[in-house]
């Protein structure tokens, strides 16, 4: 196997190894499935409750995507404003940093009061937790424009808008895609956390109800599903990033 292939299969190898080790420990010490279920048990539960899990997973998925979609729109717009104006940058950035330091789970009870139990709080939590990295990255991409590049266009009589559209935005695209990868995983965290206290559907709800019914295998199955969804979306954005902004990744090709 060539080193490149080895690199490619390494994460799968590690996953199999971890599962095997987990199974061996559970079997060897006959750990109670109410404390720490074995991978086999989790798998059995997953197959047994596949319809239930699939329904909850679908709900979590689309709620996350809705929140993430809003996060992209708001994040890009805010990032654009902050990145293109020094004044806006100075005014907004400190406030946003302060806001980002707040734990988003703490917003859930407030959102429940405003929107009731259900979709509302989950979508908004996913949005609140994931728009910040998108905004920051767009703003950084725009604000760190090289002055020579700007001069080349300004000498030609280009307006601020021209500079932003021709240079600023394309230049910040790698930052944008990079931030999407971070933001999508955060969005899943937001949805799940919100569903744990403020929903009757979704993986978060499943985790809580399975936990209180001592169905640890099912709870773990829920975790695995959320993790898998986040991974798949991460890889998707990673793929899009590589194929749309290849110019920013050239060093890895040479």
């Amino acid at each position, binding site marked *: 196997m060539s080193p490149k292939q080895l690199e490619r299969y390494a994460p799968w190898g590690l996953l199999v190894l971890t599962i095997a080790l987990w199974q061996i420990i559970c079997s060897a010490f006959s750990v109670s499935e109410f404390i720490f279920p074995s991978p086999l048990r989790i798998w059995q539960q997953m197959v047994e409750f596949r319809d239930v899990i699939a329904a909850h997973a679908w709900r979590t998925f689309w709620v996350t995507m809705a929140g993430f979609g809003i996060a992209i729109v708001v994040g890009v717009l805010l990032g654009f404003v902050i990145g293109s104006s020094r004044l806006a940058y100075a005014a907004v950035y400190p406030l946003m940093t302060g806001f980002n330091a707040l734990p988003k789970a703490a917003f859930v009870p407030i959102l429940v009061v405003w929107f009731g139990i259900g979709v509302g709080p989950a979508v908004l939590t996913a949005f609140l937790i994931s728009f910040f990295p998108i905004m920051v990255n767009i703003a950084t991409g725009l604000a760190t424009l090289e002055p*020579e590049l700007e001069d080349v266009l300004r*000498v*030609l*009589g280009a307006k601020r808008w021209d500079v932003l559209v021709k240079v600023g935005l*394309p*230049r910040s*695209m790698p930052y944008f895609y990079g931030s999407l990868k971070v933001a999508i995983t955060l969005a899943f965290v937001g949805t799940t956390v919100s569903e744990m206290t403020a929903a009757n559907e979704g993986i978060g709800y499943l985790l809580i109800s399975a936990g209180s019914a001592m169905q640890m295998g099912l709870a773990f199955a829920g975790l695995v599903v959320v993790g898998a969804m986040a991974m798949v979306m991460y890889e998707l954005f990673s793929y899009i990033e590589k194929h749309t902004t290849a110019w920013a990744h*050239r060093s890895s090709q040479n």
Partner: protein
Amino acid sequence: MTETADNFVDFQNVWLAYNDELLAKDHFAVEDINLQVKQGEFIAIVGPSGCGKSTFMKLTTGLKKPSRGEIFVDNQPVTGPLKISGMAFQAPSLLPWRTTLDNVLLPLEIVEPFRTQFKARKEEFEARAIKLLQTVGLGGYERKFPWELSGGMQQRASICRALIHEPKMLLLDEPFGALDAFTREELWCTLRDLWTEQKFNVILVTHDLRESVFLADTVYVMSKSPGRFVVKRHIDLPRPRDLEVTYTPAFTDIVHELRSHIGAIRKS
């Protein structure tokens, strides 16, 4: 105005301080610049680094306004960025997400009247860009990305970008400074040929004396902070000049003479 009518670029007692605070302290980046450039003239400005050469460029293009004095280009007072000029810097500053061809076409997407016609006449413009790239020896590299080109090739593309909209004035800010000696000499010839053919005005800022003498009609020597012109030297070497000329005694004498002026500045 009347006596300056045949001058393309005309600086009349131009002073520039970078901000009001420095102005109040009488601290100027460039002082008392007087400069008259004829239509189609190739001038070079040499001087030690930090002498305000780049500031001078910004004044000429209208990116900066003088604190005192007046600047006329093409008999019009300069009030804002001039659309009749093209600019190239030491760094090629090509956009890495555009192909070489699209980089060269960029000014046409900005400058009127090309801007409004861009979609309709795109093929014609592309053909023009490809032809220009061929004249600087970049034929066949149109679809390559800048990071697939060598430093010298990138700089050639950068010069093409500065010329694609057929500016009346080309401003070059140490364009060959980052290149090796052989590539640099090759590009001197490229620039010489482009200029001979099209006769646009060139203002070349450099710290390479051989470069300035080889290319320019007139060389100005600038002193260090505050920047002033201390010497104006007309280069009367016959044209067309070949690289061989750089090894003749006449050439070396001029370089030597200019060098002694620079030396005098540094001591004082």
